[in-house]
């Protein structure tokens, strides 16, 4: 029973993070049609900014959520408004834009990662925050992990309601499904696309803050998370934000179960699932 709880809660914790980053990527790809391979670098920035704020200014990571998130939102928004919008205008087809935006995000990957390396050097960093143990149903968990889980789930739910209930959220979903019609109906498509990209960066930022609370971080950490986000997005169905939410938790649980048997196999399990999925059902479990 104890093991079961360990695995499930561990899975939910990772799942919450995965859900966040997958939703972020899904927003950027599903709506903006940009497969942002530098997504993980935004996660890394969120993590390192939190580390710096805590280590040098004593600011709690939970407060950092409110600082880093919006800051990264602005960065993402501006990047889309300038770089990707320009590319979109110049591309002769959707396919050409998909390729060139992918390559441009590669460039971003190199740029952001190396700026981070210049600022923070290549060392592994970490800090301890709320790492006292909490007893839950007979199992011991560290407080920071439980809080991270709480926030991950909370943010995911808040975002889900935002998408389904608010005007902006509905505009985003309309733009995702049919940009042309949405534009005709008065939706400022350029603004919505840039906001979506910014929201993706926001999610990445949040994830980064939460990750830094639980694990050690280093500037090259981003790529792995980007790949996991891609896997979850494919698992949940390209274009389906709800799919990414659910897919994140599913993958987190799978990872937790595999880790129980052999920690080194979790990433491999993800990739195998990914490859099988792409070959058999590329549209994902919930996709269209």
């Amino acid at each position, binding site marked *: 029973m104890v093991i079961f709880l360990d695995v499930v809660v561990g899975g939910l914790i990772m799942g919450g993070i995965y859900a966040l980053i997958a939703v972020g990527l899904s927003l950027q790809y599903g709506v903006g049609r940009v*497969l942002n391979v530098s997504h993980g670098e935004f996660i890394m920035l969120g993590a390192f900014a939190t580390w710096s704020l805590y280590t040098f200014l004593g600011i709690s990571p939970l407060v950092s959520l409110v600082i880093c998130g919006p800051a990264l939102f602005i960065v993402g928004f501006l990047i889309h408004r300038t*770089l990707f919008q*320009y*590319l979109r205008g*110049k591309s002769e087809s959707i*396919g050409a834009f*998909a*390729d*060139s935006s*992918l*390559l*441009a995000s*590669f*460039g*971003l*990957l*190199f*740029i952001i*990662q*190396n*700026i981070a*390396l*210049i600022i923070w050097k290549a060392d592994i960093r970490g800090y301890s925050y709320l790492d006292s143990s909490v007893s839950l149903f007979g199992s011991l968990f560290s407080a920071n992990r439980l809080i991270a889980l709480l926030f991950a789930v909370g943010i995911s739910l808040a975002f889900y309601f935002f998408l389904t209930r608010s005007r902006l959220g509905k505009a985003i979903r309309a733009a995702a499904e049919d940009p042309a019609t949405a534009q005709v109906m008065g939706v400022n498509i350029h603004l919505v696309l840039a906001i979506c990209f910014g929201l993706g960066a926001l999610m990445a930022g949040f994830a980064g803050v939460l990750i830094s609370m639980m694990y050690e971080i280093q500037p090259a950490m981003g*790529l792995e998370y980007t*790949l996991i986000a*891609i*896997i979850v997005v*494919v698992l949940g169905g390209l274009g389906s934000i709800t799919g990414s939410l659910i897919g994140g938790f599913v993958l987190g649980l799978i990872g937790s179960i595999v880790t129980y048997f*052999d920690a*080194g*196999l979790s*990433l*491999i399990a993800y*990739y*195998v699932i*990914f*490859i099988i999925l*792409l*070959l058999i059902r*590329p549209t994902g479990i919930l996709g269209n």
Partner: protein
Amino acid sequence: MDGVRVLSKRFFPLGLLCLFLLLLATMPLYAQPYLVILLTTVFMYVVLTLSWAIFSGPTRYISLASAAFFGVGVYLSAILGQALPLPLVIAFGGLVSFILALFIGLLTLRLRGMYFIIFTFGVSELIRHFMLWWETNFTGTVGRFVVAVDQTAVYYVMLVIFVMTLLTAHLMRRSKFGLALRSIGEQEEAALHIGINVTHLKAITFAISAFFMGAAGAIMATRWTYIDPSIAFNPLSSFMPVLMAIFGGTGRLYGPILGAAILAFLEEVLITKFTYYYMLLFGIILIVVILFLPNGLVGLFKRR
């Protein structure tokens, strides 16, 4: 008089090329050892980029599996290096990569666009993590030692691989298969309907490009002497050829070569003192190229 002019127009570039190759072939005799080592690295990047462009250039299927094929060559070199003579090791490196690529290619027939790109990257990363896991659990130590080979020999092998890759790329481009590959990149559905066996052509071309990557990996391993999964299957080996080919432009044969050569030299110059800055610079170059020079250097020269 006209005949002479026509003759010299056709043979001038060829003659220049031969002269250049002769120069490269005799380099080790009079050049500093450092230059020989530098050139070897440049050749490696050129081979990777050129072979990437053999498949991804005309078909527009961006492959991120280069690291997998390069790494296979690296590992085979480590495993077989003590048992077999160098030429066989390199041939094996190329051959196994060829077969792996054929397998992957036939497997992914239906995947296009984004799916293909992320699939190839996923395969590459899967192999890297698998080797890491395997070595951790079954071999005891992560990483292996490779039988060292004299630097001059490495240089010559790399030069030979380069010439072979160049020849293959050139012949393919001019053949009906090169034309067919371009048509696949333009309108795959139509290409299929005029009788082109798109599946086979894609798979074989993918495999051919992998062959040279594997061979290059096999010889480069002997220079590094110690390798592990993170070195052999480094994702950068997948990213760099793409970056260099885009920079140089895939429209002409010399594009990937020029792009790789320039960026490889740039890397060498900057890597010791400005390690992180050079990658930053590459990222900026990539974005600038995509924004303003979508056909790379080739596009720049064509305009003039």
